């Protein structure tokens, strides 16, 4: 459980520093079980900051989304630091970006939050579909506690916990400047049970499953935009010449896009689950990310987003990498 | 039942003229219609056409020839993106699709008897060339004509040979400029807005028409106001990324107007009222 006061004080203190431009954190959303990203420019703004199991969003996208607009005459670039409130997975995404030199560590201040898992907002919305008021959810002894129309609800954690959090190995930030509260104990060793079960199916069963999902893809690219690791200046999908993927929305192009997205995250995905949360067509994108994560771990003993100094998976090799399939 | 606005008519390239070579190459294509559009295609200077090269895509271009020239239309194309690069590979005899004409036009009727100042930069001269040629063909209806035109280098100037012809005439004044000094260049060196101040046209009974890169238009308008031009005396023609050309696809809006349908010609007082990103 994160102490709200401690968080706010830390943010206040950090944002008051001269070398800090702003801090991204969470605030109460506008309705129901939503939380929203919050930007603190002054210590006054920090009062809005919260952290609870509804704070799902990976805020690491914000520093990479920052647009570098042409400066006006005599205008100086603001190179002060950006602060981010990070959970375990968010911090790993950042490590991965640092590894790829997408951002510089010295331009960031990290307020780490030991996470105990976040809620799957879709599930909670389905359970209480008519909740218009913002509802604060608290975690108490393996239960989520919140009140709906003055009656207190107590729901077992495992019913509402987001799927990606169930097998989370790194709930504690791997890099941070300030840590709020006690580190969470890690109990789980990932089993990849869901992926393994799916792998048992026959090829045609698998394709039937994905076909159904890919047909629903509307190619809004929300998965890409929400992902903190999709930060290419121009995405391959947006190239016109050569056009890797046609713009028409059909099974072939949708599949190509989804292969491309998953592949470009191989060895980079940190399992924050943001793509799946953002997908309006509810494609189980994490399944694709997870299978690659599992294979990479088994074949190359590699885990993404742990050490900023490490080389990227595809940027390095081992002469003894498995090659049974090569003729 | 109206005609399908997305269907292009076929046109044959009758000639290709290389205006500028190099990285920012510019070519002028002369197009003649193949079907019944041959007879019923008419336009007023300032209007645009959608040119498609089948398989590459479609782009909006200002017609750069005058409507007094009935047999063909001309468009000048700078090589920049996917479609324009493909267009630049075409030769005489190849087929293109043409839709249009689209958009509004310069008020050539309303400008009769007035002095006209044209201020163009780079490829921005293309739509101006249409009006200029129209007006030269109806020379007696109009007052003094000044043409201020500039480009980055002398090699980047479009319609060079036409300017040679213009300079020979005594009823038109052409003021050419280049941005950076070169050997053998005896005319003005400097940006187009500065050349405008140099030429110093009188605002009385005058209309100023400008087209060029956004930043040039910005400073030209400022300088015109400095010279005493009123907002309604200044006209510009804009460009935007366009797809449908008929005000549906949404991308070319400035405020509630679409450049493809309600533009591309705007007077400055109109433009000032519009809330939108240009």
């Amino acid at each position, binding site marked *: 459980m994160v102490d709200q006061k401690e968080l706010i004080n830390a943010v206040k203190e950090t944002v008051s520093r001269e070398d800090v431009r702003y801090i991204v954190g969470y605030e109460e*959303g*506008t*309705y129901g079980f939503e*939380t*929203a*990203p919050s*930007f603190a420019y002054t210590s006054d703004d920090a009062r809005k900051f919260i952290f609870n199991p509804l704070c799902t*969003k990976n805020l690491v*996208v914000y520093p990479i*989304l920052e*647009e570098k*607009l042409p400066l006006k005459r005599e205008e100086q670039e603001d190179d002060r630091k950006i602060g981010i409130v990070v959970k375990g997975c968010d911090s790993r995404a950042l490590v991965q970006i640092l590894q790829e030199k997408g951002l510089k560590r010295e331009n960031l201040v990290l307020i780490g939050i030991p996470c105990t898992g976040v809620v799957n907002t879709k599930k909670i919305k389905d359970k209480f*579909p*008519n909740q*218009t008021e913002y509802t604060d959810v608290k975690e108490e002894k393996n239960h989520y506690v919140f009140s709906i129309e003055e009656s207190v609800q107590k729901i077992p954690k495992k019913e509402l916990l987001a799927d990606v959090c169930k097998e989370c190995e790194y709930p504690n930030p791997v890099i941070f400047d300030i840590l709020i509260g006690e580190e969470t104990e890690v109990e789980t060793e990932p089993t990849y049970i869901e992926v393994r079960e799916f792998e048992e199916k026959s090829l045609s069963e698998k394709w039937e499953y994905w076909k*159904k*999902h890919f047909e*629903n893809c*509307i190619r*809004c690219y929300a998965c890409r*935009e*929400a992902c903190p690791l999709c930060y290419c200046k121009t995405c391959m999908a947006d190239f016109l010449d050569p056009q890797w993927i*046609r*713009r*028409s*929305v*059909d099974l072939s192009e949708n599949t190509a896009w989804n292969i491309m997205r998953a592949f470009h995250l191989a060895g980079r995905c940190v399992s924050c689950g943001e793509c799946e*949360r*953002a997908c*309006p*067509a*509810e494609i189980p994108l994490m399944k694709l990310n997870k299978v690659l994560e599992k294979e990479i771990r088994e074949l190359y003993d590699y885990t993404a987003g742990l050490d900023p100094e490490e080389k990227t998976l595809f940027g390095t090799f081992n002469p003894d990498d498995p090659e049974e399939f090569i003729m | 039942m109206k005609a*399908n*606005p997305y*269907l292009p008519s*076929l046109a044959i390239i009758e000639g290709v003229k290389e205006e500028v070579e190099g990285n920012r190459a510019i070519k002028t294509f002369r197009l003649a219609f193949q079907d019944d559009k041959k007879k019923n295609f008419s336009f007023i200077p300032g209007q645009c056409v959608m040119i*498609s*090269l*089948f*398989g590459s*895509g*479609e782009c909006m271009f200002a017609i750069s020839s005058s409507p007094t020239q009935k047999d063909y239309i001309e468009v000048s194309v700078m090589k*920049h993106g996917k479609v324009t690069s493909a267009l630049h590979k*075409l030769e005489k005899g190849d*087929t293109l*699709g043409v839709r249009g004409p689209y958009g509004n036009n310069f008020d050539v009727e309303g400008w009769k008897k007035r002095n006209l100042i044209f201020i163009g930069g780079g490829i921005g001269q293309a739509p101006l060339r249409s009006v200029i040629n129209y007006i030269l063909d109806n020379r007696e209806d109009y007052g003094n004509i000044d043409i201020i035109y500039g480009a980055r280098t002398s090699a980047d100037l479009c319609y060079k040979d036409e300017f040679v012809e213009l300079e020979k005439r005594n009823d038109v004044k052409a003021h050419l400029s280049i941005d950076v000094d070169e050997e053998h260049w005896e005319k003005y060196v400097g940006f187009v807005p500065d050349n405008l101040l140099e030429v110093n046209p009188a605002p009385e009974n005058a209309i100023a028409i400008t087209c060029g890169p956004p930043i040039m238009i910005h400073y030209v308008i400022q300088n015109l106001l400095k010279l005493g031009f009123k907002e309604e005396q200044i006209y510009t023609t804009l460009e*935007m*990324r366009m797809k*449908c050309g*008929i*005000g*549906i*696809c*949404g991308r*070319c809006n*400035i405020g*509630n107007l679409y450049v493809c349908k309600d533009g591309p010609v705007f007077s400055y007082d109109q433009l000032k009222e519009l*809330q*939108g*990103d240009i």
Partner: protein
Amino acid sequence: MENAIISKEKLPELFTQIIAKNKLFAPVKENGFSLFKEVEKASEIDTSYVNTRVPPKSIIFKQTETLFHFTPGKKGNVEKIPEENEKIVIYAIRTCDAKAFALLDPVFIGDFEDPYYSARRRNSVLIGLSCNNPGPACFCTSFDDSPASIEYVDILFTDLGYKYYIEGNSEIGKKFLEDHKTLFDAASGEDQKSRDKVEREAIGKIKRTMKLTGIVEKLDGMFDHPIWYESARKCIGCGTCTYLCPTCHCFDMQDESTLNKGARIRVWDSCMYPEYTHHASGHNPRPARMNRVRNRVYHKFNYFPKNTEVFGCTGCSRCIEYCSANIDIIEIINKIGEVKE
């Protein structure tokens, strides 16, 4: 025939009759969410939804549409495609989505007529289904509509438990009721009362309001207000709001071809992408997310009313509900209303 009722047992028979002569589009539940699909059997239809994920505009204004065929290359040629003339029935469309068609009509059938949209629109019958359980962010009442408005549909169904109350609106709707009248019973005054009660209850469930008085004029003076930076900071630029919006109509046109045949297609596009307005020269009139979010709000609440005298929003709440950064259009508009000039 004007007002009638149909018992739920007879409903499959009605669908069978419709399917025999028309293409029937109705909501189905797939992979855990609802969407409009062409249905072949009455049993596929699932009306237990608030609103479908992708709006039914996708039936009339398809996400991917072939405009015409061509022969690619230097010696190209154009080949028209035959006009679609199939009769379309859209069942269980919500009033907010039906209103969207009323908003899109002047766009697609204005100075120029979009033949693909207009052909389908002409051939379609909209059967509305009153929304008895509006979602938590719904706000159609802010536009003086109700979850059971009849103006925008040809026929309106209202669920009264074991039967549906049916009202015909347009000529097409009345004729449609006449054609299938063997399945209907006359509606009594009692039915009328329970229908009104259902509507009142549904309106009561809508808790959120967008304050729209004077917003068009207010926006006129707010183009450079800092509120746009504040609202757009959260935006991740994903475009979900526009793809799921029933009134967004932007599209991209592209050529697709093999060596010897090709087609010009159009696909939905979104003003939330930087590429959308990016000129080939490199200039971008809307380079920042601030410009793009501002454009979206202005388009719905300033440009649309200026051009067609109605707001370009129907209150379906999709853009609020599926935004992953909780950008709330109600909040933005209400904030604008509160700004002191």
